[in-house]
């Protein structure tokens, strides 16, 4: 879109830059196929998750999520076979709305999702594009339903999510994969999980913890049959040649409710299995989030007790000076 170009900075070509193409991959087309990553996990096995809360001291709540690349880095090629996911979220507020803003009976939630310019193979600009805005709308839908907004009239809260490294839409060697949008589902699920952890860290009242999860239906790579489909949890799009359909959900485990569904692809008449798979994946990430929040809480109170004890001790050691 012409209105979205950034005219203030000296930008690289708008079409993006390509990863270098090496002569060997052109001379021997079979060699390229040997670089294709494959899924080594079981169909119901999730990638490992790293999560940490309270990383930004000036924000009222913050969290960092990392899902590392599952396949080992090979030394024979410069190009990483699969991508990893790294997201930070920070919460500003709840704070009073400016005087000029109209009255709001409940907490006004603003979500901003932004890819860092270096987050994907194609460079992203500084101004948010349509996919980023759309992810923001999705995240808002997922969070609005869990926050008890009526307890903060006339106030607002901002959720700022920055994606430092995003999952790719497919393997870099497949020309048809780029722009297919399968990686965005993983990014959305990560955004939901990390934003929810940050909201809990900020101490905003919620009905439950919302967690993101993804499931996909893929063509079975082992069989010749076109119709042989498998359901996998937490798909890494680079590891699958043909993704038929995928679904990301925001799931409230203790209420057994979904606040957000984003499903696309050729689902067929019955989407229940896909939604169920995605909720299983989100329960997996919930286990991590719970542990991390519990640890953070313990560390916080441990620190408080120690500091209060230390203060008492210091008081006892103080010598009263009398003239």
């Amino acid at each position, binding site marked *: 879109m012409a209105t979205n170009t950034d005219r203030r900075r000296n930008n690289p070509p708008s079409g993006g830059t390509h990863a270098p193409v090496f002569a060997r991959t052109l001379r021997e087309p079979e060699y390229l196929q040997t670089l294709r990553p494959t899924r080594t996990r079981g169909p119901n096995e999730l990638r490992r998750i790293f999560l940490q809360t309270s990383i930004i001291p000036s924000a009222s709540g913050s969290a960092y999520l990392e899902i590392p690349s599952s396949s080992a880095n090979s030394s024979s090629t410069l190009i990483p076979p699969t991508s990893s996911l790294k997201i930070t979220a920070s919460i500003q507020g709840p704070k009073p709305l400016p005087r000029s803003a109209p009255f709001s009976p409940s907490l*006004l939630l603003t979500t901003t999702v932004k890819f860092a310019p270096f987050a994907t193979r194609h460079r992203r600009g500084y101004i948010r594009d349509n996919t980023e805005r759309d992810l923001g709308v999705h995240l808002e839908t997922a969070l609005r339903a869990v926050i008890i907004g009526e307890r903060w009239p006339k106030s607002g809260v901002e959720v700022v999510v920055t994606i430092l490294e995003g999952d790719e839409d497919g393997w870099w060697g497949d020309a048809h994969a780029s*722009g297919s949008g399968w990686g965005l589902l993983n990014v959305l699920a990560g955004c939901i999980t990390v934003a929810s952890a940050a909201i809990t860290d900020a101490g905003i009242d919620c009905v439950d913890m919302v967690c993101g999860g993804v499931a996909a239906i893929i063509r079975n790579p082992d069989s010749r049959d076109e119709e042989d489909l498998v359901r996998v949890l937490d798909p890494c799009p680079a590891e699958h040649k043909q993704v038929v359909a995928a679904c990301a959900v925001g799931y409230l485990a203790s209420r057994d409710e979904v606040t957000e569904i984003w499903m696309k692809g050729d689902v067929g008449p019955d989407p229940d299995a896909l939604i169920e798979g995605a909720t299983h994946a989100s329960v997996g990430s919930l286990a991590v989030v719970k542990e991390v929040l519990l640890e953070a809480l313990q560390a916080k109170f441990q620190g408080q007790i120690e500091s209060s004890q230390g203060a008492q001790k210091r008081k006892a050691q103080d010598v009263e000076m009398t003239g």
Partner: protein
Amino acid sequence: MPPQAALVNLSPAELSFLRSALSQTPPLRLDVTKGPRDFRSMRAECDVLPSANGSARIALEDGTEALVGVKAEVDTTPQRPVLGEQEHVVTNNGDEDSSANGKGRNGWIEMSVQVPGFRDDDALPVFLASMLSDSLLAGGQLKDRLYINTRFHWKLYIDILLLSPPLSYPLGLLSMATHLALLSTHLPSLKSEKDEDPLFDDDWAAASPLYPRSSSKPLTARDMPPVIILAIAVGPNIIFDPAKEELAVADAVLAVACTTSGGSGAGAKIVSIRTIDPPSHLTPPAVPNSMNSATGGTAPDSSAQALTMREMLATSGVWTPPRGGMKRGLVSQVTKMVVEKGGVAEEVIGALAGIEVG
């Protein structure tokens, strides 16, 4: 501040009344003559724009009106880098496998939505455009049809114009208008062969439709563009095609995009599902008589007491904005009602096919 499109100015008492009417069995809708599965009546026409490849206009009875134009342009396909000696090998491969299956790219379809009163980077138009393009791209058949040869392809621009202000949530209307416009879209027929520069027949009568119509096949077995159906849940009831006021009291809103199931011929299949944030989350909570000193109650002393008193009146009928999401059972119930044989999707697609095309 994101402007809320479908926000209505109803008092908490009105919201509470509307909700209790809608959660009765059977539900009593705002328009009492309509059942939970009835759509609002509309006027539609196809091929209204002479300079577009396909177009449609739909006007709802409440005054909402949408115009969709589809234009196609020939565009070059960027080539992957190949070594010089491999050039002919690649073209040979192209000749062997001339079917277009799986060769389409998502970037070949571009969609823009314009809603009056909204900037084109506001949340609502962005959301509408991505939901509509998601459902179009899902099957992959449409983008494969845009393939001409290894070097050229059609680029399809779908421009959606909402002519009236968004009086109700416009997603269903826009998707039905897009459906009709794509059904009436024709592409000029190709005269050149294989990898030559494309040359087209200038006779418009020879143009081939983007979605081929064969009246011999039953409707469900034909390939049709997707249509998006909006459903809301109020208590135990599921209501399709909600009006603006009904949307304001919904517990959850679901948009289901579906198309005909193709070969098997029974019911429809789903190509995309999305939840939509119900505007009811932004409605003001009511103050019950027991908490209002003007009506004989006692006003709470502290904010903590106010919170406790609020939580205790959850089921008393005093309006409180709904919390939490949608039960999983409800989601599968909605999708089943949409896709089953003789379900809502089949009804809508059948009704739209009944409109005289061309």
